[in-house]
């Protein structure tokens, strides 16, 4: 049952990811990436990481992609004509690098003998929260400073000068 869910969401994620990077219209790119992120959220749930599944939907599908869609609308971004890079050298090099990254990893993983996965780690929000305010407290606070800096930086960048 779990395996079937995994295969369905994996196939859906790959198809929508391909659509997200290959379609000409920016709106279609963003919306199909929403589908990809939902499928990844299902995979987080399959891994026993229920908090991450919720955070994935809230942060990625909810916040980040809405921001993307907002900017697409704001800039009135036209569909690219043509969508894909036209210089042959860059096209070949890009495709070769992407194939190398994906194919190499898969070849290594198929050859590797991995021990069977143990029972899913307890991924509930309580345990994760204890880690965040325990051993990772400094990094957790640093993240809040980083987000504040990004907020101020974004405001400064888009502010009109008079």
């Amino acid at each position, binding site marked *: 049952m779990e395996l079937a869910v995994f295969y369905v969401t994996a196939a859906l994620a790959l198809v929508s990811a391909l659509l997200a*990077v290959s379609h000409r219209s920016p709106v279609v*790119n963003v919306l199909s990436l929403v589908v990809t992120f939902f499928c990844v959220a299902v995979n987080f749930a399959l891994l026993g990481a229920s908090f991450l599944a919720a955070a994935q939907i809230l942060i990625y599908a909810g916040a980040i992609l809405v921001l993307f869609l907002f900017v697409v609308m704001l*800039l009135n971004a036209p569909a690219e004509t043509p969508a894909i890079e036209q210089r042959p050298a860059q096209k070949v090099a890009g495709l070769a690098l992407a194939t190398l990254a994906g194919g190499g990893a898969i070849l290594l993983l198929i050859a590797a003998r991995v021990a069977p*996965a143990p029972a899913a*780690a307890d991924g509930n929000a309580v345990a994760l929260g204890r880690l965040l305010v325990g051993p990772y407290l400094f990094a957790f606070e640093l993240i809040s400073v980083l987000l504040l800096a990004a907020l101020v930086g974004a405001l400064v960048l888009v502010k009109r000068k008079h």
Partner: protein
Amino acid sequence: MAIPTNHFVILASLLFAIGAGGVLLRRSGISILLGVELMLNAANLTLAAYSRQHGQLDGQVFVFFVMAVAAAEVAVGLALLVAIYRRIQSIDVDRLSIMRW
């Protein structure tokens, strides 16, 4: 029957390759940022998969941090795109040649 860790990592590497292809081949700034998001998400899936493999939650904490950094990155990246659009009325990265000698 638990799903083997391999399956998740293979899915993640395929998603990463698709994202990398998008970053390398697209010309619109928005599409390039979308490719970066896809690559970050693939890395997140790998971290969560190995977190389960080792029975420790630390990998999931890293995923949380990556999500936060991705949110910061996308805010600044999109602000840069808006600023670029105001300057050259385009987000085609091929037209960004102001700093070329």
